[in-house]
């Protein structure tokens, strides 16, 4: 129980820290942040319209209030889900913009992350099971090599080869110009076609970390006394590999899962940009280049909270998988 309480405590504390961080970032610059932002917006070509001004004021709170009351107002707004109005997509609210983009990223990241984890863990376990064989060296060396490739570059190459040269897949976007989001078979197959290359870009490098982590952990667990004893007991090889090797070796990967999710979400910024994919990552980059601060702030907050929730879920799962932490983590 203590373990779960501690993890919940950590989750709440990090949540608060993320919200606070989000409050502090725009205020890091000297002077009145709203004025500074306005000054920078005015430096842009288009004139500042009143809507933008209102949006900034709303985001940053009234500048005559002190920092503490601003913080209080901000917390209230966050709790009520009021993140203001996007001014690059005026008059849409920030929340509406995020709601449109969220499913795209959720599906792309969710599917590729789970697939990467599954593929990586399986390959890593296979390499450990056949340690020092040809299979092992192919998997280990191959993944080490693939791991050095920058994946946004892989994305570019994928477009170059499969979209432009071979013309097998569309070169970008979430769906074709002829269709619009709807619950039809046509739309889904179209969206699927568009997501193959971005998913591939994430999937090529995605499993590398899991492969190496799983292999090393499992080589170690299979060398432990309990695995040797299992062999002495005459347990079938496969059973030893599963219950005495993989079952224990997978534990560190479970906690790694959430941390990797943070990295992968970062990766989606790159991949979605390359493929012009209508998800949160591209939206974030657009917000940054349009200086759409409310949208940018809210997006960062959402991503962070998403990762924190995933992290919390991974911790809870870990608690169920590893009987040792449930009781032992008193110190």
């Amino acid at each position, binding site marked *: 129980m203590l373990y779960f309480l501690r993890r919940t405590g950590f989750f709440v504390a990090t949540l608060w820290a993320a919200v606070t961080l989000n409050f502090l*970032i725009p205020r890091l610059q000297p002077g009145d942040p709203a004025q500074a932002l306005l000054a920078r917006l005015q430096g842009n070509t288009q004139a500042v319209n009143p809507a933008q001004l209102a949006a900034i004021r709303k985001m940053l709170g009234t500048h005559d209030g002190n920092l503490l009351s601003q913080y209080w107002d901000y917390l209230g707004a966050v709790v009520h889900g009021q993140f203001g109005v996007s001014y690059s997509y005026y008059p849409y609210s920030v929340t509406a913009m995020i709601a449109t983009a969220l499913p795209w990223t959720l599906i792309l990241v969710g599917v590729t992350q789970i697939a990467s984890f599954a593929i990586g863990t399986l390959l890593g376990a296979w390499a450990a099971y056949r340690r020092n064989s040809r299979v092992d060296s192919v998997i280990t060396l191959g993944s080490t090599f693939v791991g050095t490739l*920058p994946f946004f570059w892989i994305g570019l190459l994928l477009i170059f080869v499969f979209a432009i040269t071979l013309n097998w897949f569309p070169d970008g976007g979430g769906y074709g110009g002829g269709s619009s989001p709807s619950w039809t078979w046509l739309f889904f197959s179209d969206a699927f076609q568009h997501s193959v290359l971005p998913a591939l870009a994430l999937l090529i490098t995605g499993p590398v970390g899991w492969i190496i982590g799983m292999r090393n952990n499992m080589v170690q667990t299979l060398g432990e006394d309990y695995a040797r004893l299992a062999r002495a007991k005459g347990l079938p090889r496969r059973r030893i590999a599963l219950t005495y090797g993989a079952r224990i070796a997978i534990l560190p990967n479970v906690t790694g899962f959430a941390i990797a999710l943070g990295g992968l979400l970062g990766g989606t910024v790159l991949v979605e940009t390359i493929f012009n994919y209508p998800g949160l990552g591209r939206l974030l980059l657009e917000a940054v280049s349009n200086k759409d601060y409310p949208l940018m702030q809210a997006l960062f907050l959402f991503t962070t909270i998403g990762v924190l929730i995933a992290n919390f879920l991974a911790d809870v799962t870990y608690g169920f998988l590893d009987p040792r932490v449930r009781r032992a983590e008193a110190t």
Partner: protein
Amino acid sequence: MTILWRNSKCRAGMIMLAAFILIAVFAAVIAPYGPRVSDFGASEGPSGAHWLGTTARGEDVFSQLVYGARTSLIVGLVAGVLSTLIAMAVGLTAGYLRGVVDEVLSFFINLGLVVPVLPLMVVLAGYAPVKGLGLIIVVITVTGWAYGARIKRAQIITLRTRDYITAAKFAGDSTARIIAFEIVPNMISLIVVGFMGAALGAIGAEAGLAFLGLGDPQTVSWGTMLNQASLGGALTTGQWAWLVAPGLVLALLITSFTLMNFGIDALSNPHLRED
């Protein structure tokens, strides 16, 4: 050093890295043109005059590639050193002092681990009033120390309970001396590996940010090259060399670090340090 040299993988990595350093130092000699000289025909394919073709603005791709090595190495070195220093300070303090200090610092370490780094970088870069290499380095450092700090904390926690630490206390050594002379030498390989990891992350992050167009447009880096190749239509004009070359050298630089990492574990192992 000799032990690192004897490891064939490590040796290959060191040679590769040395080559990159030489290229970066002598960029002006090696590159046929200046990186921003745009006197040539736009979007040309590879030729004798321009080995890797020219950009959409009429710059020589090969020259940009050579100068790009400078940016990557500087970012890797500076951001790597800075985040290793932060990681050491935080990790060593948390691990050696334990107690409340540890609780607080550990919380920040864990927070640093779960916050999605690239979006944070993007947001920080978006707010920054000026764009430049310095900013990129600061952003990368601020967001990249947590992992190293966690590992160093864990290591020091196991080291500080060793009997030889107690013995040093009984020999009258001060805490600072114990950390510097008894603990840190036993963490050398961890620190070096940590530095390499941080440098690697920094190089990748710089390329990513530059690719997104958030870098300094004045600096020539492999990330900005890819960004311009992507925007400049390298995909559609079939200029594969402009597209392939920056990614490939980036991969080679990362490979050299990875190869060196294989050999470094031997460094801390005193059994292998004889003769």
